[in-house]
């Protein structure tokens, strides 16, 4: 191996380590702070190893009103959003990828329009519509809003993936007797799985992190971020760390589950 090649490999390794640290160090620090006692957070310099572990702030935070309920609501909304967004978004993405129709480019652009308007502007009218239809203060309302917000990414990601699935294979399946639906489910869908997984991940993350819409549309049945974010912004540092960790962990678990599908996208066999 030439010296130059060895140097390149070392540089790649170093870059990988740097990126891992970039992602990992904040997570480590927030976990450390969340599980330290309040007094130890006032020390300077802060110890970088768990010298004074305590679950006091974390348990106080987890016991505050509405955290469990909010967690269940967030999960319901998140999964509901994924299901709805995929149900509507995957066929749309397929259509955009497979069929040429008049105004296709404009359509793709207009898709993004829902993300162009800030929710602050829409909040009062939105809340009014949901109040009038009786959906206000239910997880369905939040689910619908999040689906609307997630659809553009779902459509665009899945469309990009369907373009990559060869149309000939689909036709071949139909020649051998598959109905269009069967051909889609058994030939196209498995190959598009990584893209669908990525779209699902985006939809879930969006729903999990969205605060403003959820706050405006609910009152007594809030999602977790809507329930705790205002609270945390005004709370002492110790609680911000505890809340931060509690909000990050479930999202990490979801990513870990979806990761195996996502990695397939680049042809990796890593499971």
């Amino acid at each position: 191996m030439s010296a130059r090649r060895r140097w390149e490999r070392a540089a790649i390794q170093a870059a990988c380590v740097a990126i891992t640290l970039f992602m990992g160090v904040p997570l480590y620090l927030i976990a450390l702070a969340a599980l330290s006692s309040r007094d130890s957070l006032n020390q300077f310099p802060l110890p970088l190893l768990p010298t004074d572990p305590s679950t006091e702030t974390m348990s106080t935070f987890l016991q505050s009103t509405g955290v469990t309920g909010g967690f269940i609501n967030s999960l319901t909304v998140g999964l509901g959003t994924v299901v709805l967004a995929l149900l509507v978004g995957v066929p749309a993405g397929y259509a955009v990828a497979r069929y040429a129709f008049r105004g296709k480019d404009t359509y793709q652009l207009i898709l993004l329009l829902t993300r162009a308007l800030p929710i602050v502007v829409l909040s009062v009218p939105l809340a009014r519509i949901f109040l009038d239809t009786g959906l206000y203060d239910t997880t369905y309302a939040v689910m619908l809003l999040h689906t609307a917000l997630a659809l553009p990414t779902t459509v665009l990601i899945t469309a990009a993936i369907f373009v990559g699935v060869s149309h000939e294979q689909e036709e071949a399946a139909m020649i051998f007797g598959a109905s269009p639906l069967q051909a889609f489910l058994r030939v196209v869908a498995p190959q598009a799985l990584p893209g669908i997984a990525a779209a699902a991940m985006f939809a879930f993350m969006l729903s999990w992190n969205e605060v403003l819409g959820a706050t405006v549309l609910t009152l007594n049945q809030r999602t977790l971020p809507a329930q705790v974010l205002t609270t945390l912004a005004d709370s002492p540092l110790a609680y911000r760390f505890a809340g931060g960790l509690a909000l990050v962990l479930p999202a990490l678990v979801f990513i870990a589950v979806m990761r195996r599908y996502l990695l397939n996208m680049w042809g990796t066999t890593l499971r």
Partner: protein
Amino acid sequence: MTNRINDDLRISRRGLLGLGLGVAAVPALTACGGVSTSGADGGEGSVSFLSTQFTQVEERQRFEKILGDRVTAAKVAFNPVDASTFGTTVKSQLDAGKVQLSLLGGVHGDLAPHADRLMDLDDLLGSLGDRGFTSDLTDLAKLSGSTTKYVPWMQATYVLAVHKKALEWLPSGVVTPQMTYDQFLSWMTAARQGNGNKPVFGIPAGPKGLYHRFFQGFLLPSFTGGQVTTFRSPDAVTAWQYMKELWAQTAPASTNYDSMQEPLQRGEVLVAWDHVARLRDAPGDKPGDWLMLPAPSGPKGLGYMLVVAGLAIPNGAPEAAKAKEVVKALTTGDVQVDVLRQNAFFPVTNAQLPTDLPAAVGLEAAAVKRQQETAGAIVSLPPVGVGARDAEVGQVFKNVFKEVCLDGKPVQGVLDSQAGQLNAILDELKVACWRPDPAGSPCRVA
């Protein structure tokens, strides 16, 4: 062919499984229209209480406990939110005519923009004659109209917290508790020199800090006697020159501080000015090391700002009668003292303060009393009647601070240009001046 059959079988099995899951998911989904996150389920008979106060984790838990223990008339679903969500929720529910909220709690400025969405509470206030609300507060509660729109809930103000270590640098001739702004500046200058050139004074000038209240309610009234009308007077120039000198003796990290109790606890600063509820935890378990002092006084007197929170009932509230019972319970002496004890908001009634207050609250209570009773005290209010634009008005004062103290621009020029901004807002609103400015209408910078 065999293969083919097997294959078909596999699909149908998988399909069956999927179908089963789908069937199971439908009732599961319909069952979870949501899980309650506000204590009571906000359903039949409970009073839905939306509040801008006690959003902080511990304050909220302590207040929920007070509600649970002391309010027996109804189950209360307490729902603390930030001020903008409060405004949006109240507006959308009342404008759609589908009101789910029964009780609203907020500071004067949160309730003021919704005056015509609130029920008249003259009868309720009349039945609370024994509570001894001062006429100042009940006048304020009319929200510039002729009828009572909210019942006073609690009040607060701002004081100085001082670690006793800072007293060693007190210049000769300067005595606590009551000093002038000039004496305070010489103290902070001496303290900085004594502390190895490291400033010991901090103000909450962070993104969510309340430092604009220092200018609106303390500095400017003390130097100019007014808040808005005297905004660009020669006295105001003197005040901001003073502020520039004080800023030079202030910890530069102040622009990161939202609440001063944390930097005080960490020992980053030894002296700080902030809202009483945001200084409460500073003394921690060593109250003997701490002092709470009234704000300094200026040429025109001791300016201080009063924060008043009120309880209101929206028009069309589903549980209005029960909400009134909750208001009655929250204004009893016991509950008022409980709230002071737990969350450091002071009673608005004639409730007797007990002698066994938590040490930090006791220190604050003494400082607040001294501040109110100082001869020549000038009470000011946060902007009244500017409603949702309170933040914009506050921003004008923050801008002056930034341009004068951080950017070092000449004071008069900054005041002239910001006065234009302030007048532009006030001209649209056409509101009467609030204290300490003389009640002329419309209010604008002279």
